[in-house]
């Protein structure tokens, strides 16, 4: 009984986190703001799902494969977010470094 309730709570939280993050992706204005909502979707929700499978299945092959997928998501998410924002900055400004402005001039080049 306690196991079922725990699984239900964990899954409910995971779905709530996913729904809130997805709504955040829709509501925000640009990629810089939207990418913030990838983190709970790629880290919090997978960990909750992994915990639910662990509670349901115990230490088993199913749990191991679930945590393997969760591990890949958790590790990949920061790299992907960084690469996405880097690409967005290069598309917008021509360079990802903050010291170069929209006109391509570095601070030391300006009078």
């Amino acid at each position, binding site marked *: 009984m306690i196991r079922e309730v725990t699984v239900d709570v964990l899954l409910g939280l995971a779905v709530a986190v996913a729904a809130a993050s*997805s709504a955040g992706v829709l509501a925000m204005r640009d990629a810089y703001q939207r990418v913030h909502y990838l983190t709970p979707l*790629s880290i919090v929700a997978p960990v909750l799902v992994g915990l639910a499978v662990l509670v349901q299945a115990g230490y088993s092959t199913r749990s191991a*494969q679930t945590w393997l997928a969760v591990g890949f*998501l958790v590790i990949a998410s920061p790299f*992907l977010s960084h*690469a996405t924002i880097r*690409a967005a900055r290069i598309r917008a400004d021509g360079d990802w470094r903050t010291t170069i402005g929209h006109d391509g001039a570095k601070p030391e080049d300006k009078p």
Partner: protein
Amino acid sequence: MSAFVLAAIGMLLAAIPCLIVVWRGQPMDAVVAYEAVGSITVLVLILLAEGFRRSGEFELAVLLAVLILGSGLVFVRFLERWL
């Protein structure tokens, strides 16, 4: 219907706002939403595999979790340089 299958349906419904951004957004916005949909899809595969007790289908989720990183990097690289 088990809680895992219901959660998978909930996850699929949660993906709808991201799919709207993929459909209507600018390229960079669409890539961000695509990455979100990819994460949701991995979770859906895990939930369905556990819900229907098919241990072999967990491998799909593991593979997709690996491929999301590669495909996302390819997308952002193309957007950064050529598109």
